[in-house]
Each structure stands twice: as structure tokens, then as C-alpha cells.
């Protein structure tokens, strides 16, 4: 009899437990980021920013009273260590959500792993467009744009601001991103401005300390435009050496990742070159700089690190906003104290959220739609480094292929009218 009663009580309680999870003592999340290696120029600022976001939210009482705890995993330790750490944090430590990762290679490794482990994963910074074009995932989301939207914004800005250029040369790092980004850029250029001549393609090795020979060659070739999607120390060295030798006076540089090097380059990035930010990420974001949350964070970040935030900080803010908004939405939609996994996944589908930039949303293929900010460098004297003028913010929707199409096929079908069809806001500075 007693057994029967217990069983009935358990059965009666069952629908309830299926509806909601118990409120945990803390929401554990794991974040992969580069703490060592060249890409720590992005990873360390993102971690510092994440610490601030988490501390701020926890000071307000967390999500529905649950504080957040982050475990950081170093992507610089190599793919093998990374996957075993990812597994450990997701399984043994019981992280409810993972944020992985910076490197596109790591995203391609960890997306299927997250799917296997059934842990929701927000791909917070990696650029490769292939993930959702070649696979479909239930547990993987990307709260940011991808290489396609970033490169198309660069092409569009170049065509709008320098419509008459005839020759271009490229100097990219010799690894997946350097090659893939040039493929997208080149394909787009051929579709939208077929007459442009590519006079030089250079892929110096990743981490090359010297670009002197490439620069001599470029000075002999005199291309109208020099494209480089390099970043970190490679970009700094290339721009510094090009500046030292006067190449920046004769060619217009297009540097889609230079927002992350502005402060380090100081006066070595002269006026008149095209700068991108992998999204609408800029410490003087024209639409956001007067907003209290934006200003407040900039002050906190400056105080904590002494630097201005770079795009990876904005990407971290977007992932954090997506996480927080998804939990709050799942709690509100289901009227529960704490959502279970299915409720969280349902909330992430089509989620709208806002980090430090414009509002983003997730498409049905889980790809984020992120606006893209491009600008031209200017040395105004207000800061000891270049800032941006003639800023354009492109709406992200027009920069992505329709769901189900691959970027390459879609871009090949574009033409010169593409640029005019984009929704764009322009600001003087």
C-alpha cells in the first residue's frame, strides 16, 4: 500500500518535473577563448569583458536569482586538449551552456561534439560560414555574423567609397581564414566589378615577422588597392612596415580586421584607409556611444584593462546577451523558475538580443544576423591612434545568403546592383 502511494505521488509529480528544471545554485557556463598564442589578442580582452558582464549581472542577482559561473578553456593549448577540456567542463563540471570558440577550426571540431554531448553551444567568435551551410545542428547557435557578411560589407564599402579602382593585390595569412576570406572577397569582386585586375596574391606564413619583400614587390606593382584580412601581430607588422616604407601613400589599404589593431598601430595607420570590425563593433559606435549601458561598460573596461575594447569584446557581449535573453525568455514563456534544455533551445530559436552593438536575431538555420560597420581611418588628434570617419553600418540581412544556399553559389549570382540594394546608414564619424 505504502509503495503504491509513493508511486502514485511520484507519477503525479512527473509532469511537473518534465515541465521545468530545478533552479540550480549557479548557472555554470564554459567559454573557450585564446589565453595563449597569437590569437590571445582577441581571447584575453574577451575574457576580461566576460568577467565584467558576469560580475555586473551577478551583482543584479543573476538570471532569476541564479548567479553565473564561467570556466575558461584555453584554445591555445591545441585541439586535443581543447576537446577533452570541453568534454570535461560540459559533462563533469555540468556546464549548462558552452561558448565556443574563436578559431574557425575549433568551431568545426566542437560543433559536432556539442551536438553529441547535447549541450547548447553558442559559437561566439569564429568566422567560417561553412558550419551552417554544410551541416545542420540542434544544439549549436551563432550569436554573430560570419565571414560572408564581413567580406561582403568590405567589398560593398570599397565599391561605394572607391568606385574607380582598377587593380588590387592581396596579402593574407597563409591559413584557412586568409585563404577563405580572399575567396569570398575575390568572388564577390568578380561578380560586382568584373573589370578589376588582381595584380598580386601573397600568402606569407602565419606569424611572419617580416613583409619587406612583399612590400617591395607591391611598390613595384603599384596596385590601387591592397587588401589584407590579417589580424593581430601579423597585421601590425604589415601595416607598420608598409607605413615605414611609404606604401600607404600610394595604395589604398582595405583592412577588414583593423579595428582590433587601431590602438596598437597608433600613428602608423594614416588617414584614408578602409577599416572593418567583423560586425558593428567600435568603441565609438555612432548609434550606441551615447547609450548609458554602452558608456558604462566602456568606462568599466577601460578601468579594468587600460585599453579600448576590440571586436572580440563585442562578440562576447553578444553571446552573453543571447544567453541571458534566452534564459529569461524561456522562463517567461513557460512560466517556470528555471527552464529545461528543450525550453532553452526553443527560446534560442529565432531569438532577438542586443549586446554592445545593434540588435541581432538568429535565423532558422541558427546563423546570427549581425550588422557590419566599416569606416575610413582618420588621425584627428583626439586619440593617440586612428579613429574612423565616413562610417557605414550595413544591415546584416542583405549580406547573408538565403537559408539553405551556400555563400559561394549565392555570391556568384550577384551583380553590380547588389551594393545599391543594401540597407545602410552613414555617419561622419
Amino acid at each position, binding site marked *: 500500500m505504502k509503495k503504491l502511494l509513493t508511486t502514485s505521488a511520484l507519477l503525479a509529480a512527473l509532469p511537473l518535473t518534465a515541465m521545468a528544471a530545478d533552479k540550480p545554485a549557479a548557472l555554470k557556463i564554459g567559454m573557450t577563448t585564446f*589565453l*595563449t*598564442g*597569437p590569437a*590571445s*589578442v582577441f581571447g*584575453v580582452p574577451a575574457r576580461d569583458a566576460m568577467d565584467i558582464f558576469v560580475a555586473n549581472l551577478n551583482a543584479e542577482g543573476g538570471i532569476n536569482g541564479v548567479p553565473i559561473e564561467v570556466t575558461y578553456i584555453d584554445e591555445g593549448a591545441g585541439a586535443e586538449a581543447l576537446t577533452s577540456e570541453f568534454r570535461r567542463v560540459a559533462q563533469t563540471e555540468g556546464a549548462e551552456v558552452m561558448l565556443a570558440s574563436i578559431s574557425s577550426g575549433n568551431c568545426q571540431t566542437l560543433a559536432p561534439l556539442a551536438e553529441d554531448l547535447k549541450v547548447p553551444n553558442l559559437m561566439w567568435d569564429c568566422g567560417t560560414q561553412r558550419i551552417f551551410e554544410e551541416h545542420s545542428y540542434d544544439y549549436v547557435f551563432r550569436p554573430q555574423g560570419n565571414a560572408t557578411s564581413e567580406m561582403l560589407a568590405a567589398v560593398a564599402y570599397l565599391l561605394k567609397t572607391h568606385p574607380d579602382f582598377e587593380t588590387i593585390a592581396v596579402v593574407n595569412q*597563409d591559413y584557412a581564414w586568409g585563404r577563405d576570406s580572399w575567396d569570398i572577397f575575390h568572388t564577390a569582386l568578380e561578380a560586382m566589378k568584373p573589370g578589376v585586375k588582381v595584380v*598580386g*596574391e*601573397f*600568402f*606569407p*606564413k602565419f*606569424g611572419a*615577422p*617580416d613583409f*619587406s*619583400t*612583399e612590400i*617591395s*614587390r607591391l*611598390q*613595384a606593382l603599384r596596385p590601387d588597392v591592397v587588401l589584407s584580412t590579417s589580424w*593581430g*601581430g*601579423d597585421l*601590425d*607588422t604589415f601595416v*607598420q*612596415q608598409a607605413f*615605414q*616604407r*611609404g*606604401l600607404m601613400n600610394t595604395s589604398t589599404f582595405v583592412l577588414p580586421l583593423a579595428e582590433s589593431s587601431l590602438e*596598437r*598601430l597608433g600613428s*602608423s595607420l594614416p588617414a584614408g584607409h578602409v577599416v572593418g570590425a567583423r560586425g558593428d563593433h567600435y568603441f565609438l559606435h555612432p548609434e550606441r556611444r551615447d547609450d548609458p549601458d554602452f558608456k558604462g561598460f566602456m568606462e568599466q573596461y577601460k578601468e579594468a584593462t587600460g585599453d579600448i575594447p576590440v571586436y572580440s569584446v563585442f562578440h562576447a557581449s553578444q553571446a552573453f546577451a543571447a544567453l541571458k535573453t534566452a534564459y529569461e525568455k524561456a522562463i517567461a514563456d513557460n512560466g517556470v523558475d528555471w527552464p529545461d534544455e528543450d525550453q532553452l533551445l526553443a527560446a534560442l530559436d529565432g531569438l532577438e538580443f542586443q549586446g554592445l552593438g545593434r540588435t541581432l536575431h538568429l535565423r532558422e538555420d541558427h546563423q546570427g544576423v549581425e550588422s557590419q560597420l566599416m569606416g575610413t581611418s582618420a588621425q584627428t588628434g583626439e586619440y593617440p591612434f586612428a579613429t574612423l570617419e565616413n562610417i557605414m553600418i550595413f544591415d546584416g540581412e542583405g549580406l547573408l545568403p538565403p537559408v539553405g544556399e551556400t555563400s559561394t553559389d549565392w555570391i556568384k549570382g550577384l551583380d553590380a546592383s547588389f551594393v545599391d540594394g543594401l540597407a545602410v546608414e552613414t555617419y561622419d564619424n
Partner: protein
Amino acid sequence: MNLTIFLLALFDGISYAALVFIVALGLTLIFGVMRILNVAHGSLYAIGAYATVSLTGFFLALGFAPVFAFPLMLVSAVLVGVLLGGPIEWLLLRRIYDKPEVLQLLVTFAVFMILEDVQRLVWGTQPYFQASALQALGNVTIFGVTYTVYQLILLPLVAIALLIGLRFFLRHTVIGKLILATTEDREAAQSIGIDADRVFLFTFVVGAVLAGLGGALASPTTSILPGMGADMIVLSFAVVATAGLGQIGGAAIAALMIGLGRSFAVYVWPEVAVLVPYLIMVLVLLVRPEGLFGSPVARKI
């Protein structure tokens, strides 16, 4: 390929070779005398660069003229040699001269790994750039292409001065002759009263100073960041192996071959530029396993 492009590639190759040679010089000197392949040489190079950037930044902030960066390069190189090179030889290497080569390699590799983390601890992970020295010398324009005086003229001059200086030092000074004697036969040298321990310590410090000087001279031209030491040790090892371990003059030739090979590749076939140093090394070692100028030696074991 016309004459202009040929000359441009030549200039680029020479200035690149000069820098690589300065670093390879220290590596090959240490190997020639002590028979130790010092992997930590790469770290000493990186720390030389970091030290120069920090010192230069500090003194320029105090209001010193940019030309002051040049003596600071020497100061940094000597600091690296004495403060790091000295203890490494005295505390570690001295204990393993008679141990198997694999162990020696592992020990210097361990030192390399430790020093890599020390750099990260002291200087963090963000790249540094300090080009005052380079800017102080200005530019020259040849065939419409602008070069920096620092890279086109100063670096090759320093490399040649070091090559001649070191050869003169080894052959025509007392200490140099002591080093050569110890290199030839350590036991015989000791039996006639040469303090081999001190000779080794001195040689290692000189080699470490050269590594630091390489880093100091490279610092105005490139971003200083974690990992730069690993790249340089691989490249300078390629130079040293191509030349034949311990061959000082040979290292100069090999550095030139590799520098020129790389710069001509950038003009003719950029895709293979990255491979060129190693292709040259492989080709040379296939034909002459002891290197271009090395002589075959009987195995120790």
C-alpha cells in the same frame, strides 16, 4: 625578370639574410665550441627584442632622443647574455656536457619552454611595436621603391662587422685562441692549464649576447609577440644545418642563400616562399649530410 626586379629581390634578400645570420651566428658558435644545440637560443632572441622595446619605450618617455635606441639595443643584448646566458650555462648546461645528446637537447628545449612562459608572464600576450630606431635613420628610394636605411644598409653592415669581428677575435686574440684550443680537444686544453669551464661560460655568454642582439636589431622592424622565438630558432637552425654545424663563415653563406631564395620566390612564385628555406636545407643535406661546409665526424657512440 628584368634587372630592376632582380636588384629589388637582391636587396630584400640581403637585409633578411643579415638578421637571420646574426641569430644563427650565436647558435653555431655555441654548437661549434660546446657541441650543444641550444634551443633556448630562440627565447634569448625574443627576450632581447622585448627588453629593447621596454628599455627604449622607457627612455623615450623620459625625453631622450630616438637615436638613443641604438645603445639601448647593445645594453639589452648584454643584459640577456649576462643575466640569462650566464646562469643557464653555469647552473644547467655545465652538468650535462658528458650526457647523451638527446638529453642535452631536451634540457635546452625545457629552458626554451620555461622562458616562453616567462615572457608571457612579464610582457603579456599583446604585441609590442617600437620603431624609433628605424625611423631615426629614414628611407632611401631605389628604382621607385622605398627602403628603410635601417634594413637595407645598417643590418647588412652589422652582420658583416660581426662576421669579420668574430673571425678576427677567434684567430688573433688570446681568448679566441683559448676557445679554439678548447674546441679542438677539451682534455688536452685542460692538461696545458686552460680553464675549460670558464671558456665554455664565456662562449655561451657571447652566443647568448648574439641572440639578444639579433632580437634587439629585429625589434624595430616587427611586432614583438609570444612565439617569435620559436619561429626564429627554426629558421636559424635551418641556416646552421645547411652550413654545417659550427661553421661561422658557412652560416653567412647559408643565410644569404636562404634569404635570397626566399625573396626571389616572393617575386617569381610567392606560393613557395614559405617553403624555400627548408627546401634549400633538404636539398643541401641530401647531397651533403654534414652541411655545405661541415666535415664528416665519427659518431660519439
